[in-house]
């Protein structure tokens, strides 16, 4: 086999491993969802570690669950985000570093110890077909992915990459991605429909912790707690921004994530900031979170500050 066709072969599939990049933008009006790495901060760090363009396609690995790879040629990979008890030939790998794999070596992801989603970046980014301007894999839409069918990574898949000589970088101790602890804060920019909720509901929304439910995926994360009620049961369907916190009639909020439907008809409290969405994407079911209101301009300052770390 030609050296360039060799790659990383999937020996065992985990519960959910997807090719992701920054997401599919400019196509929301077609009904096409955004997709993209749910914890975009860890995803960017993974690419940064190898000196890649920050939106290069990488793997988003949920839970681990025995996912394993064997490499056919030497390669340097970067691993960030959740600690999924990754091991290289049985030796533990520290998260938020890059490491070298030699032909025949086996990389295994066992189970989450901290966080939920790990990101594995490849030199120059993974090779995958681009659909509507992105390599993001969205299962529900059957878009993107290695075989252009929206399917997750599976046994026998061979992953190849674009680059040859990645950089060797280290994340400064004070800046690397941190996995959220129970009781973490999720900044939320309040929306106009906030006025339709009762004063009591608003007090409850922001003055007690919410529990991340196990009904959580890339479309939405349900939070459980006291039922929030308001005067609106439904609204005329309108566009849904990333992080929108919608409240269906049962009063239990759902945070709409990267693979959300593009329009929807439940009233909303507002939308989590992109940084809060990255945090929530790492919360295991049972984690307690606080919704903490923030102004749009404060949220933008925090967001721009986050972007400066990769300059």
């Amino acid at each position, binding site marked *: 086999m030609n050296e360039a066709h060799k790659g990383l072969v999937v020996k065992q599939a985990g519960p959910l491993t997807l090719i992701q990049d920054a997401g599919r933008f400019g196509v*929301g009006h*077609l009904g096409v969802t955004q997709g993209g790495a749910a914890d975009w901060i860890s995803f960017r760090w993974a690419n940064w570690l190898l000196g890649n363009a920050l939106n290069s396609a990488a793997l988003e690995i949920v839970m681990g669950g025995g996912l394993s790879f064997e490499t056919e040629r030497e390669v340097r990979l970067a691993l960030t985000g959740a600690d999924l008890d990754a091991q290289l030939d049985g030796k533990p790998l520290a998260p938020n570093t890059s490491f070298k794999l030699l032909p025949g070596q086996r990389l295994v992801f066992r189970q989450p110890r901290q966080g939920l989603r790990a990101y594995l970046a490849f030199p120059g980014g993974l090779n995958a077909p681009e659909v509507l301007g992105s390599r993001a894999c969205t299962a529900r*839409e059957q878009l993107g992915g290695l075989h252009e069918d929206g399917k997750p990574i599976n046994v026998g898949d061979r992953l190849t990459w674009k680059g040859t000589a990645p950089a060797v970088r280290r994340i400064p101790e004070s800046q690397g991605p941190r996995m959220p602890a129970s009781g973490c804060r999720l900044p939320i920019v309040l929306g106009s429909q906030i006025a339709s909720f009762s004063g009591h509901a608003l007090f409850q929304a922001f003055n007690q912790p919410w529990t991340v439910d196990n009904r959580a995926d890339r479309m939405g994360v349900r939070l459980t707690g006291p039922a929030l009620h308001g005067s609106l049961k439904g609204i005329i369907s309108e566009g849904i*921004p990333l992080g929108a916190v919608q409240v269906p009639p049962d009063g239990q909020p759902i945070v709409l994530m990267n693979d959300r439907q593009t*329009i929807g008809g439940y009233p909303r409290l*507002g939308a989590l900031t992109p940084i809060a969405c990255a945090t929530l994407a790492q919360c295991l079911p049972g984690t307690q979170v606080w919704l903490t209101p923030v102004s749009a*301009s404060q949220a*933008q300052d925090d967001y721009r500050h986050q972007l400066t770390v990769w300059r």
Partner: protein
Amino acid sequence: MNPITEKRTERRAERRIEMRVETAAMDALMVRLFDTIDEANMAWVIAADQKLRSTFGSALIDLVPSYTTLLLHYDCQQLTHSEAIQLIHKALSGLTPVDTQAGELHDIPVWYNESVGPELPMVAKRAGLSIDDLIAQHCNHDYCVFALGFAPGYGFMGLVDESLATPRLKTPRRKVAAGSVGIADRQTAIYPLLSPGGWNILGRTNVPLFEHAKRGDPLFRPGDKVRFRAISREEFEADGGDTTPMEERP
């Protein structure tokens, strides 16, 4: 000027837009033009869509029009929140509606049959119509495409005659076949690809909505009109239509 055009001009002049710009997220604003669903909204929504796209240029990340609103996601590395709000007001001041006749009229052949449209009898019974009359009624209106969403290429259309209005199924199906034509309340739509769904399914079309969407070229665009046309099983099959019956019953 013929009488029809005159009437339309009058109606346009009567309508005044009271636009509101609301915060939707850190870097997203909701432009609210109307509070009720109306086919006449579309000429304004499309006009606003065109204006916002040209005004924001590279600072626009996504713009999602719907029945009464447009959700604008801008690049907060280029604009602050208040600059984006000002730009929206600037773009939409003196807005005039587009000519709704500019939208395309799509002819959609549908095989209406209980095997692929399990709710045909129920919807007919509710409406007090025979199945044939129900089909004729569903084909008897040029539906307006209000919005694309839910799935790539999925067009929310309406308004269905009030007699046919049927609420969504209590328990959504886990699998609705691609090409299924359904109604929910006074809306009608086609499922572009196999997906879960709770609409009342009346029949199936072989028009490839998803393939169009995948190329970034959806068959339907907001403001287009859609006319359904009943075809026989033979015609449907000859066109390559999949006659596999809907598996699940709600």
